[in-house]
């Protein structure tokens, strides 16, 4: 079953786990952007979530509390963004970029005592009897609970945005804040809550990196995952199921290139390392080329002030 030294079953199982951080962060950002807010600080919220999750998991010994801590840390940082853009009406692009730089610095500072320390392990959710089944075992049953959580979130957000009243209000606010305000919806309050949700999701994604994917702690642990999450939201036309496809595409290529490196591919390592970024961007361009309306929320990136 090996193809050039790569086992496809293991490959699929690994890509599902490796895609979790960007999947969660991109889902959160999808909700934020659907509400009309462009938060470019995903990378910063992820890395702060990674630190918060790591510290709490190490100190308490509970990975579960660690993920909650990651969510809280990400949400708190996003509230800085929310206060600046929704209350003080600062420019969203500049504030988002600043948030990323701030988050990276903050996590370097806070993580200094933790270099090289390993967090408590997050185990596999289902019993070995299921996980040991051939082929379907590793792919469907062999994961930790966060992988299932991320998949459940895809379905939940799809359903909330499509079929519920709160989803309708979020889309309405992102589509035309003037109209939503005229109908009596509190535009900035709704956006603030979406921003906090996006921050929490990015924080959980970051915590998955520090607790599962790359322990022990290293500085700059996210390595650009937040930027890819932002790109995937656009590539997915702001739709949760397409976010899943985008995240798995990126995760798949990342895992594949690692495996190719191990298998001793003739392609130089440098090219393999840049492949996931390059291919994701190429796919993104192809997907969005030639389409007139790409489904972007009409008020995306515009601040709202109820002055009329």
């Amino acid at each position: 079953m090996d193809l050039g030294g790569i086992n496809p079953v293991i490959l699929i199982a690994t890509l599902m786990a490796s895609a979790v951080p960007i999947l969660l962060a991109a889902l959160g950002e999808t909700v934020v952007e659907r509400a009309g807010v462009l938060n470019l600080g995903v990378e910063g919220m992820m890395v702060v979530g990674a630190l918060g999750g790591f510290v709490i998991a190490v100190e308490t010994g509970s990975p579960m509390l660690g993920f909650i801590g990651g969510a809280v840390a990400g949400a708190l940082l996003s509230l800085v963004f929310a206060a600046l853009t929704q209350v003080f009406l600062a420019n969203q692009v500049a504030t988002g970029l600043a948030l990323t730089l701030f988050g990276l610095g903050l996590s370097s500072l806070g993580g200094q005592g933790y270099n090289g320390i390993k967090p408590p392990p997050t185990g596999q959710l289902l019993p070995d009897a299921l996980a040991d089944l051939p082929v379907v075992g590793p792919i469907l049953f062999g994961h930790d609970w966060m992988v299932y959580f991320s998949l459940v979130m895809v379905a939940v957000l799809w359903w909330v945005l499509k079929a519920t009243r709160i989803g309708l209000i979020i889309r309405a606010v992102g589509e035309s804040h003037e109209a939503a305000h005229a109908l009596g919806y509190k535009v900035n309050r709704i956006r603030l809550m979406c921003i906090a949700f996006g921050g929490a999701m990015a924080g959980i994604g970051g915590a998955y990196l520090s607790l599962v994917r790359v322990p022990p702690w290293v500085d700059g642990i996210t390595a650009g995952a937040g930027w890819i999450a932002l790109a995937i939201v656009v590539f997915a036309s702001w739709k949760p199921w397409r976010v899943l496809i985008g995240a798995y595409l990126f995760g798949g290529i990342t895992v594949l290139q690692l495996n190719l490196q191990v298998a001793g591919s003739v392609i130089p390592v440098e090219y393999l390392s840049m492949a996931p970024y390059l291919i994701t961007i190429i796919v993104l361009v192809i997907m969005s080329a030639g389409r007139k309306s790409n489904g972007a929320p009409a008020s995306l990136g515009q601040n709202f002030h109820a002055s009329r």
Partner: protein
Amino acid sequence: MTTTRPELLRVEGITKAYPGVVANADGSFAISEGEIHALLGENGAGKSTMVKMIYGLVRPDSGTMTFRGSAYQPAKPAEARRSGVAMVFQHFSLFEALNVAENVALGMENPPQMRELAARIRAVSEEYGLPLDPSRMVGDLSAGERQRVEIIRCLLQDPKLLIMDEPTSVLTPQEVEILFRTLRQLSSEGTAILYISHKLEEIKSLCDEATILRRGRVVATCTPRERTAREMAELMVGATLKTPERRQGVKGEVALGVSDLSVASPIPFGTSLKGISFTVAKGEVLGIAGVAGNGQDELLLALSGELRSSADKVRIAGQPVGDLGPVDRRKAGLVAAPEDRYGHAAAPDMSLVENAFLTAGVRKGLTKNGFVDWAGTRRFAEEIIKAYDVRTPGPDVAARALSGGNLQKFLMGRELMQGASVIVINQPTWGVDAAAAAAIRQSILDRAGEGAAVVVISQDLDELLEVSDSFAVLNEGRLTRPRTVEGLTMDEIGLMMGGAHGMEVAHHAG
């Protein structure tokens, strides 16, 4: 008849001040059940602020309101809706990327399941002769259909008082007739209607009572049927009105020629232009009518040079310019004034001097060796301010700080004072008070009298009939054959505008 009906809403001594302006001062009036009551006044007279207070969007500084016998002071629109007050907005209350049912649900307190809501939308739309498909995207609907969405959104909540803010400004004459039939039906069922407009003929034919506002104060109440339109207009303006005079110029050779121009729209949910052809001679004013969203913005872009086509599709004085951009077209003698003041016609955060340079730099020679001639630009801006009576502290004020009407006067002056041979204007007097509108129309006629070819795109039919020599209608991106204005009737114009978009049928059936 009015006296026998119980009183529904009484507004007493309502006052609302914003920094620098008093929007409403001590305003009082009353509406009884089933009455159609007009709120009449110029732009900025305080009509919109008044109804926003009734609808709970704005809180009055002082004064009281009584609704169905009890004190009424809604803190937010949801409370107003619960009390039985509904409002159809002039702009900004529909979501283009959502479908009809979703738009309706957003304006309701406790919307039912989508499937049930769709059924109720169908039922109500048939009952009132307003056909509408709940699953269609609002972005694909015509202006008239969009208004139906808003009306149905209100009707589903069984309102006691329906507020309508300038409902007919986007409709064809036939659509207006159908809207009025619906409103009369509602009134006979006991729903009161508060109708805001500055169109006097409409108010005469529809409304039972009228309250006239001027600069935030109630200046008169009257029964519109017993007054002439002129009497009401003078109450509204507080002065006698002057009609623009046409200076008879001699028509010369063709200055602007457009033949078979087709371009795709760059605007989401926009309308592409399909085979547009017309010519405008020197000294001629061509008026282009049409309901908003039928290609007006696109036509302006294609003429100004923001949208390019092949060279021979657009000709200025016989020279092909279709493939040239705005700067080269200005050099060739064409200036254009788009509709959107804040962002398209003007850079809102730049000063009037800077804005004057942005379009007039080329024709007025306001650069020296590649540097901006600020002294010359300032002189030009001051000339505009003086000639067009722009109320501003000075030319260094940001464009955003001017009121809509004042900025419009400045922008019109900027284009009209460049001595261009071809002038294209979209909505010259939108949001401008009557006296200023008359001044702008007069200067359009003056430029034509001096030999310029002018294209005026507008949704105000009275304005077009006043200034144009020839008349055409844009309908779904196609332009009708231009014809002379003399002898043109409202009915003919209505038919040129595409009638009522299939609405008559529904009314006969329902």
